[in-house]
């Protein structure tokens, strides 16, 4: 990390398309002024986009090629609170929970950069709890489908067998991402509360001193999880 080299970069930074070509044809680093952890998180997220993209493309393929009728998600995921079943209500609530958690995460990143330790801590904790709520509702959804509706990865009583395999694969992978996110949100709310990010104290996991950029990097991951849900909600539940 020689500051001379990067200092010379700063003299020629252009904006717009000229800046794009300059950055990509420059020496040593293409992402100017971006912490390496953030660039690495974005690289991971792009690769994750391909994983979920492949899942959704396969879902399209199996749904288009089956002769059996596709079960109506609107009815399968309806819930009754005493009266008539409300279509898709559980999924709607899960969507709102996840969006709320995305909002608290965005605020946590902002307050982190303001070095407001306790507001950041409470916002991160709220995000973690909302994420845990989402996973809890997913557990409820899965057990309802498995034990009451008899949905299996290889078949179900409502129609096309592929419905079950797609459901468990896609929502399972997404739920796994949420669970990992919740674990890291708890770890980072602890780190924030202990003041590790202000003192740049080395963490047990990476053994390097952290700072509030890490909250932004964690935020990228969390928003991505919400982003994936936007696509799952549209293609799997609403389509």
């Amino acid at each position, binding site marked *: 990390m020689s500051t001379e080299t*990067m200092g010379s970069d700063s003299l020629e930074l252009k904006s717009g398309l000229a800046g794009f070509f300059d950055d990509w044809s420059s020496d040593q680093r293409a992402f100017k*002024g971006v912490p390496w952890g953030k660039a690495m998180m974005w690289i991971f997220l792009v690769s994750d986009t391909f994983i979920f993209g492949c899942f959704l493309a396969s879902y399209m*393929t199996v749904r288009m090629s089956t002769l059996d009728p596709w079960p109506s998600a609107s009815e399968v995921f309806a819930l009754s609170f005493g009266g008539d079943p409300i279509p898709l209500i559980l999924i709607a609530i899960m969507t709102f929970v996840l969006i709320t958690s995305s*909002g608290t995460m965005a605020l946590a990143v902002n307050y982190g*950069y303001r070095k407001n330790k306790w507001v950041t801590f409470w916002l991160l904790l709220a995000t973690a709890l909302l994420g845990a709520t989402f996973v809890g509702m997913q557990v409820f959804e899965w057990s309802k489908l498995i034990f009451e509706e008899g949905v299996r990865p290889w078949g179900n009583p409502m129609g096309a067998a592929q419905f079950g395999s797609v459901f468990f694969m896609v929502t399972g992978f997404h739920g796994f991402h949420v669970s990992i996110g919740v674990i890291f949100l708890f770890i980072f709310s602890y780190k924030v509360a202990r003041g590790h990010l202000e003192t740049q104290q080395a963490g047990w996991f990476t053994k390097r001193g952290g700072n509030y950029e890490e909250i932004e990097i964690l935020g990228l991951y969390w928003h991505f999880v919400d982003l994936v849900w*936007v696509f799952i909600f549209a293609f799997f*539940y609403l389509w």
Partner: protein
Amino acid sequence: MDQAVDGHGGVVREEEAIQHPLGIYFKIWILLFVLSAMSYAVDYFQVQGYMRWFLILFFMVLKAGLIIAVFMHMVWERLAMVYFILVPPALLLTLVAIGSLEADWTFFQRGVYFLKELIISAPAPVHH
């Protein structure tokens, strides 16, 4: 898009991030709520046909765009980073195109195969 970058990107990032007013996050947050409610309404009021597809995709793209642009700070990034993130996933469209061709063919083959099976299992003899 103009931003001063010195050797310690982090320092600049922090100052820059502080400059984002909180208001924009609250506005986007509310918008995401409204858009989610509207995409749920598409199902609740059982809008069907092309209108359903259009509305679902429309709200989906808007929500995804807002999350990426503001919550993931994409509007404040340099183009070198923006293109690196947004261009490669466009390749997925190729996969979707291949998948839909394949699916049509499979659907056709299944139709033919299952139809033949029905004819063979029928009691009436077939002339040769």
